């Protein structure tokens, strides 16, 4: 599978004008790749995820194209898009613990959903049971109501359901945010297992927790204020980031073994801009110590070395450092 996103621009319509939440996003996800999507709250990662799977008002597709396995996705046409959903592209939502209808037994929910997609429940039942075993859920779960399950169990049930039809691309939206560390590890391992067992071909994992991505992602895409900042393999992002924002981000991660008395946590001073009326050019320039006049223009997302993309004039502009 391959995902190609070109110039994707999505705004939110509000009474006070358009919130420019996602601006000209261009990137690709290769077959079998687990790409992490990270950034501060409000940087546009959820917008990106939602545009791919469920673009509904007040979101508005302004420009751009998305190709999945070469096919153009009809993002803003709900009816045509529903053919791709669940079968080609699927999601584990942020609200996974509330994602199941509370007044229906879980098995029934799955059966009815499959039936509406033209899949016979009985045929898929053995596979479903195997997968329940994989995530350590008893088969009895199918005969229970969601309220009878714990939060973690519900999330695992949703994980199983979302990949049941072996989609090409799975988007996992902040699924570890509400979990404790040991459960986070289990969930991360489950997701990687999905890819390794080819339940899904590629994954986009959205989080604001880079440490999780370090454990499971092949590559990381960093976003800031609706713009793409940097994309590279996990190793490179962590050890040799090039974008000023990524560098500050990595630097502000607490390091194991370093105590507060020895070295204080450094943050990034300032706040992300409001996207109702965003600044022109690179949106990080107000907080960037290296900003100069060229930054008034939007830097393109350029591949400075194999598989490493940066959007920063300093990195490839006329006065780029070596």
């Amino acid at each position, binding site marked *: 599978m391959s995902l190609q996103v070109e110039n994707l621009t999505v705004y939110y*319509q*509000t*009474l*006070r004008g358009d919130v420019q939440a996602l601006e000209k996003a261009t990137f690709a996800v290769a077959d079998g790749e687990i790409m992490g999507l990270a950034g501060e709250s409000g940087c546009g990662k959820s917008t990106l995820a939602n545009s791919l799977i469920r673009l509904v*008002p*007040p979101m508005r597709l302004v420009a751009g194209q998305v190709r999945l396995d070469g096919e153009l996705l009809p993002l803003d046409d709900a009816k045509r898009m529903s053919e791709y959903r669940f079968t080609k592209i699927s999601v584990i939502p942020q609200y996974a613990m509330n994602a199941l209808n509370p007044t229906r037994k879980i098995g029934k929910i799955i059966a009815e959903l499959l039936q509406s997609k033209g899949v016979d429940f009985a045929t898929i039942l053995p596979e479903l049971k195997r997968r329940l075993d994989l995530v350590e859920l008893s088969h009895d779960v199918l005969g229970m109501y969601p309220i009878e399950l714990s939060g973690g169990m519900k999330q695992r049930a949703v994980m199983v359901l979302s990949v049941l039809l072996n989609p090409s691309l799975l988007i996992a939206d902040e699924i570890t945010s509400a979990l404790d560390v040991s459960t986070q590890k289990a969930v991360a391992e489950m997701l990687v297992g999905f890819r390794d067992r080819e339940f899904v071909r590629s994954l986009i994992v959205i989080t604001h927790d880079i440490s999780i991505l370090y454990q499971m992602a092949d590559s990381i895409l960093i976003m800031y204020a609706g713009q793409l900042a940097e994309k590279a393999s996990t190793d490179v992002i962590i050890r040799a980031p090039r974008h000023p924002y990524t560098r500050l981000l990595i630097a502000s991660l607490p390091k194991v073994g370093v105590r507060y008395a020895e070295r204080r946590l450094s943050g990034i001073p300032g706040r992300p801009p409001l996207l109702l009326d965003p600044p022109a050019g690179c949106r990080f320039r107000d907080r960037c110590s290296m900003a100069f006049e060229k930054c008034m223009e939007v830097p393109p997302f350029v591949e400075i070395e194999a598989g490493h993309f940066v959007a920063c004039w300093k990195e490839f502009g006329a006065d780029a450092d070596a």
Partner: protein
Amino acid sequence: MMKRKVRSETLYFALRNNKLRVGLSVVLFFLVLTFVGPLLTRYAPYDYVNPLGAQPPSAKYWFGTTMFGQDVFTQFVYGLKATFLVGVVGGGLGTLIGVIVGFTAGYRGGMVDEALNMLTNIILVIPTLAILLIIAAYLKVRGIMTESVFIGCTAWPWAARAIRAQTFSLRSRDFVDLARLSGMSPWRIIFTEIAPNMMSYLLLVFILQFGGAILNAATLDFIGLGPTNAVSLGLMMNNAVLWGALLLGIWWWFIPPGLAIMAIVGALYVTNVGLDEVFNPKLREM
């Protein structure tokens, strides 16, 4: 700084919400009429001003006159006063009791909750009309305040139930747990953490109680259990039917009062929906 921003944002949406604007305008219109109306007429509600008895609306008598030659418009504007009074006092009292009972039940839980629940159920089941009958038999002279207080004291169960449910859901939220963990006294928790979140909900509850009290009063007035020394819209309809306005076609006597009630209460309900949209961003229309 954040609080001010949030409040002004709420105001921003409030001023632009159509339902809120229409609803409040209608209510305000009648409210203004309540104050301005008596100045526009030189009669008193029960004065016999028209020797010709019942007459349709004319330039002299804007809403016509009753069978006894009383000016319907005068009765109407004075009756509006009664309506608003009942709404404010009756609705306010009902909300107040509902808050006390519902909040205590929801916050404390356990035995307190059970006991208050039983109290609520009993009030719901007792035909309050029966109690009113007794009161009416003893109090030969009754005013609007008496009626309002009575309505407030019997209409609170609905408010109590709603507030209790809301308290339950708020109580288990994380920020309350956090406050409790930090050792805040229960009173401070209630006032600083829970109350602000309840405020919008309480406003909605109050508006519903307001409307309900008006309808309740209209019913009571209509069957003769209303105030004896004042004029109210329900009373006008009662008199109209009693004196054969229906059969004699004196439509100007009974149509305006009911129409006003329908308009005011309807506007209140619509305002309620609008407010709900303002407070709950998910419901906002774009």
